């Protein structure tokens, strides 16, 4: 085993990192397949939360610890829960849940388009000579805070307004016509 490792010219750390990467990638892709191919909407929603958690693990591998925490809180927490609530409020017929998420007639053309675009993206990734910049990455949370309030402060304020508008819009849309009339 140790001869093999020296032959590969890699430390045991690299191999552990690779094992974690493939483990998390397999979880993310398998859960995403479940989201796309399951016909039960509740299963899709729960597998979506699993996929989000796997992506958070990948962020940790990429040394983005702040974003990993945000991913767990916002996606696995808020978005997954709001989607489950959405499923609960929109499925009315009893017993229809196992077939609540059917696919339409476009399966073959959609598969062709998705395969073509994925192949194109993979080919582009492999054909591009990326300029790898080796350098110590700064600690993520202070650096993100610093750039949010200096270089990206306009976008930061725009995002704040966007969230406010989305919140008000969601409330007004979800209340419905009659409730808005009486208010």
């Amino acid at each position: 085993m140790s001869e093999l490792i020296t032959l590969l010219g890699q430390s045991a750390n690299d191999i552990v990192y690779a094992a974690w990467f493939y483990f998390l990638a397999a979880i993310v892709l398998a859960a995403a397949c479940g989201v796309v191919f399951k016909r039960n909407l509740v299963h899709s929603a729960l597998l979506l939360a699993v996929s989000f958690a796997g992506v958070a693990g990948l962020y940790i591998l990429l040394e983005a610890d702040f974003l990993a925490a945000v991913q767990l809180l916002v996606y696995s927490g808020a978005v997954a829960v709001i989607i489950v609530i959405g499923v609960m409020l929109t499925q009315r017929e009893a017993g229809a849940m196992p077939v609540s998420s059917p696919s339409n007639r476009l399966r073959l053309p959609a598969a062709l388009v998705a395969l073509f675009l994925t192949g194109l993206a993979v080919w582009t990734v492999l054909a591009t000579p990326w300029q790898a910049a080796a350098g110590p990455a700064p600690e993520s949370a202070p650096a993100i805070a610093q750039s949010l309030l200096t270089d990206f402060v306009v976008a930061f304020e725009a995002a704040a307004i966007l969230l406010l508008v989305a919140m008000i819009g969601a409330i007004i849309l979800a209340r419905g016509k009659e409730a808005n009339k009486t208010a």
Partner: protein
Amino acid sequence: MNASLVNSFANIIHAATAIGLYHFLILGALLFGLGLYGLLTKRNAIAVLMCIELMLNAVNINLIAFSRFVAPAGLAGQVFAVFIITVAAAEIAVGLALVFAIVRDRLTSSLDDLDWLKW
């Protein structure tokens, strides 16, 4: 012969275990393709919203991989990912509110029934 075979085998293993930018970008591409397929084939509006979230996650993986391997100095990729997460949260809230409004008025969340703009 034997030595070159061992060498090429070692090269393959090396490419598979030295996780770099390529691995994350290809994972992002695969996730994006899966989300796109679901986006085009799902009938239920909420399932379509879920597939959009998958695609946004794929983009975030790409951005953070770039931030780690290509431009680690300013963490601009991670800041972009923060904004994408913000927009995704706003999108899912407004999207679900629209679905609620449609379900209340039309008693359906199937996108195939939402064809009133057809003539």
